[in-house]
């Protein structure tokens, strides 16, 4: 734990996150999220559905990247394919890749000697996040914490903008959820260590939250949207 965690976890990191609501905008548009209780339910769905998977992939990417120099010959294509398979909604895949592209732009600027091209032009966000975490001197568990918390912080911030919630009240929701985030990240990192040791990439966690896929699909069909996802 150090400045690197705060650097990559800062909501002000200019990696495009501010324009993504993680399906919340659609859930609000359909009236499913309208108060703090329904927001909490939505965020828990994000955490245990998306967060558990994103955390595991970020942790696995951190292990693949290695602690000293980014491994250009690591199984980046395998991780990419596996995360695609766990993201059934095409708009969700596009949102992940858009944020991955933006984060890779930052990573290339901050650590230009590393072979970021090995990850592809528009890699999944969790994969770049895990790789970048190692450059910021973080380990796989911290990479998982970053990815897991990212799945709830973004929608929570969007809720403040879309529903005029008291930002302090929303922060209280996140504070109460922090222990859950740590637990999910811990389990995600454990799963990633096992998979990394065996090289069985298809055994990475595959939790899902179909409701979020529905949100993503409906959002992409909307004419009037504030957020990219």
């Amino acid at each position, binding site marked *: 734990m150090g400045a*690197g965690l705060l650097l990559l976890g800062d909501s*002000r990191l200019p990696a495009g996150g501010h*324009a*993504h609501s993680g399906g919340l905008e659609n859930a609000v548009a359909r009236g499913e999220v309208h108060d703090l209780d329904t927001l909490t339910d939505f965020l828990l769905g994000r955490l245990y559905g998306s967060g558990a998977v994103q955390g595991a992939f970020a942790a696995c990417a951190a292990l693949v990247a290695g602690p000293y120099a980014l491994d250009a010959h690591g199984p980046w294509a395998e991780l990419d394919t596996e995360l695609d398979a766990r993201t059934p909604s095409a708009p969700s895949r596009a949102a992940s890749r*858009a944020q991955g592209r933006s984060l890779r*732009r930052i990573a290339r*600027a901050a650590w230009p000697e*590393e072979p970021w091209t090995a990850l592809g032009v528009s890699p999944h966000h969790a994969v770049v996040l895990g790789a970048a975490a190692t450059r910021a001197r973080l380990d796989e568990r911290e990479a998982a914490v970053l990815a897991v918390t990212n799945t709830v912080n973004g929608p929570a911030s969007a809720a403040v903008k879309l529903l005029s919630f008291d930002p302090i009240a929303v922060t209280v929701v996140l504070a109460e959820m922090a222990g859950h985030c740590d637990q999910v990240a811990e389990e995600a990192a454990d799963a990633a260590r096992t998979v990394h040791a065996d090289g069985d990439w298809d055994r990475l966690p595959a939790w899902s939250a179909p409701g979020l896929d529905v949100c993503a699909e409906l959002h992409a069909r909307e004419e*009037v949207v504030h957020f990219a996802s």
Partner: protein
Amino acid sequence: MHLDHDNSPGIGSGSHHRQGFPPVVPGSRPLRIGIGGPVGSGKTALVAALCRALTGRVSLAVVTNDIYTTEDADFLRAAGVLEPTRIAAVQTGCCPHTAVRDDISGNLDAVEDLEAAHGDLELVIVESGGDNLTMTFSRGLADVQLFVIDVSGGDKVPRKGGPGVTRSDLLVVNKTDLAPMVGADLGVMDRDAARMRPGTPVVFLSLRGETGAAPVTEWVLAQLAAWQAGTAVPVAADAAVALGAVPAYPAADSAAGPAAAPAAASAALPTAAG
């Protein structure tokens, strides 16, 4: 001590190349012009007028940041001046300002995609969503920027200042034809604008008048000519120079533990004793 080899702890790589901040060589890629300003000041109408005036003379594309809809892009398409593949819309997550200043990645993606799709591009116009007088574009997104206000907001707007008014490369006071109807004194606006932004140009505009967007078109063409001739000020290079004053970070795999702060940093920072 050479900064490349110091062993102080850091997170960045310590490379002096700083590929993320390439000193952009003017003319090496299309010129990027930002157009910002308050809601309803006429940004989109100005962009449409520029497109009409420049089509056939300049290969251009537009990125629009409208907050709510793809209406801006549709407006440009309906005007028949740009083919749809030369227009991209960016969602700003309820924060039009953030998308052009603090986190420009969505716009950078759109600009880079347009550049990749149209190899002949010379000019990319990035139109912000409507915001207030503090709206400015990051120099990482726009090489030059113009700020559009209009007389119906009152003739006090220029003297209110704000970075949009004071720091833009061109201030456009739009809808001058409405001045008599809203009781705006153009002389006052001219005087205040000159005081708030000494040495930088101000243009009074009425798209309904005979000259239309001509003064802005000429300014844009002059900026483009300077850019393509390589005589424009490479702002990103300035930024790189400024960053060069920051002590370089050591490599992430630096074996050393905590060490003394880089000499340059120590020298640069005021000390208690000093």
